[in-house]
């Protein structure tokens, strides 16, 4: 997979927990333009271990001099967000992938309803730029815990005015999904990005009110959960690799030098899907890609986030 070598041009502390990073290309060339909602995967070298995390691009998609991401310091970090916050300095070099969009706006929508929770605001920052340029009909509903967590709230307000509606939990603000979703004009598409429970609640509410599936869009990057150690056997390359408790299958394969396919690394896109030959235990699926039936059938696994409780798992690679 081809990468872009970038340098950190600026770091801004946006809130106590959120930092905004500006990247420029090392070769001085312009970045490719992208579409609102795209993300890149950032590779970082943490004491010799390569960690790759996906982050939404939040700048204007037409601006090619720099890319912008924001990172929330995760309490249960596996190292990525803490590394970005504590170790990364202006002038440091990183590798990023070309932008990929798994959270694209539906251009035929009559209205776009954007719903953000906390750091889930980032993909909407680039989408707003697209929507403003296309003079689209939209609203952004942005919920966060307390005023000090409302990253970019002021900046967005200045750009889009009363199309931004905020809900601040500490001030008693409540986003009532049922009220909001039950009064939207025919042809509306809804997009949600935020904490897991919020995403699930939005999807379930929309379904209950009769929204068709193709009008419901969500993005959630899951960090690979840790678990027990197990061994994987790759049938084509005849390799046996131990997956340690704190590493994902994908990371363990990469550490062993295997060029395994991936895109989002968050269980969303399905690119890294592997065929399961057999296992002496159970698969622990953590992705948002496979259907419940596929998960139950146990013939496929997403190694970026899923693992197994077993001694040996055999996959085709």
């Amino acid at each position, binding site marked *: 997979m081809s990468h872009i070598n970038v340098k950190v041009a600026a770091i801004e502390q946006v809130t106590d927990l959120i930092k905004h990073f500006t990247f420029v290309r090392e070769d001085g060339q312009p970045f490719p333009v992208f579409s609102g909602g795209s993300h890149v995967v950032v590779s970082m070298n943490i004491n010799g271990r390569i960690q790759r995390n996906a982050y939404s691009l939040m700048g204007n998609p037409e601006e090619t001099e720099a890319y912008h991401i924001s990172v929330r310091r995760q309490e249960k970090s596996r190292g990525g967000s803490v590394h970005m916050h504590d170790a990364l300095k202006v002038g440091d070099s990183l590798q990023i992938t070309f932008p990929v969009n798994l959270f694209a706006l539906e251009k035929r929508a*009559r209205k776009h309803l954007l719903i953000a929770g906390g750091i889930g605001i980032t993909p909407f920052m680039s989408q707003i730029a697209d929507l403003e340029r296309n003079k689209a009909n939209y609203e952004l509903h942005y919920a966060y815990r307390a005023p000090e967590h409302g990253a970019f709230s002021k900046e967005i307000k200045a750009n889009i005015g009363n199309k931004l509606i905020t809900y601040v939990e500490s001030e008693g603000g409540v986003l009532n999904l049922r009220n909001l979703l039950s009064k*939207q004009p*025919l*042809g*509306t598409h809804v997009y949600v990005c935020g904490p897991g429970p919020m995403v699930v609640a939005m999807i379930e509410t929309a*379904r209950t*009110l*009769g929204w068709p599936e*193709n009008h419901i869009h969500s993005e959630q990057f899951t960090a690979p959960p840790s678990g027990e150690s197990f061994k994987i056997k790759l049938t084509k390359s005849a390799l046996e690799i131990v997956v340690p408790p704190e590493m994902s299958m994908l990371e363990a394969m990469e550490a062993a030098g295997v060029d395994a396919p991936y895109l989002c690394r968050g269980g969303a896109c399905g690119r890294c899907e592997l065929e399961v030959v057999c296992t002496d235990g159970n698969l622990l699926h953590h992705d948002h890609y496979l259907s419940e039936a596929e998960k139950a059938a146990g013939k496929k696994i997403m190694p970026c986030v899923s693992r197994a409780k077993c001694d040996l798992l055999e996959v085709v690679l």
Partner: protein
Amino acid sequence: MERGYWIRSKPVYSALVWQQQANAHLVLVEGSAGGLAAMKLFQQMLPQQSITVIYETEAGGADYTAALKKVVPDDLQVFNSHDAAMKALEAHLPEALMGLRIYVAGSEKFMWDIAQIVLHYGVDDADIAKELTGTLARSVYCVHCKAITHNAHTNIQACSGCGKKLFVRDHFSRRLGAYMGLMVDAEDPGQIPEIEEIYP
């Protein structure tokens, strides 16, 4: 017809069933068979949400208006012309909300006329429940002169635009609401296969 032959673009229709998860329901039916399809729908249950029924009656056919008046609780609109029924649909949509479930029973022309109208309101045809009733007549798009000929009952149909004898394919355009028609004797002028009624 060749056994096992199937073309992906050919629509497959099924019987109407209420969607339990909904904000409101809009039922559009055409002719005698469509009226009966609406009655069948109300036999299943009476949904919680508000229901509008637009019924386009058919001259000379059985009229289910009286029966529908007894079962449709909120809003039954009956029309004796296609244009009036489509105008009623247009009038219903600007105020409609997400969660409106749309059900159509009638000829293919009826359902795809509706699909083209609701597309302007951001509704994909895949989200419309469709039941084919009354006739299998096809609308045929002439790939030569681009005219659309409605009500084709035969495997070969004369184009209403250029007069060419068109072989009616299964290849269907959702955008046009019509099957592709190709000049059947383009290779051997005058060699027209037997014309048979296969879309009664």
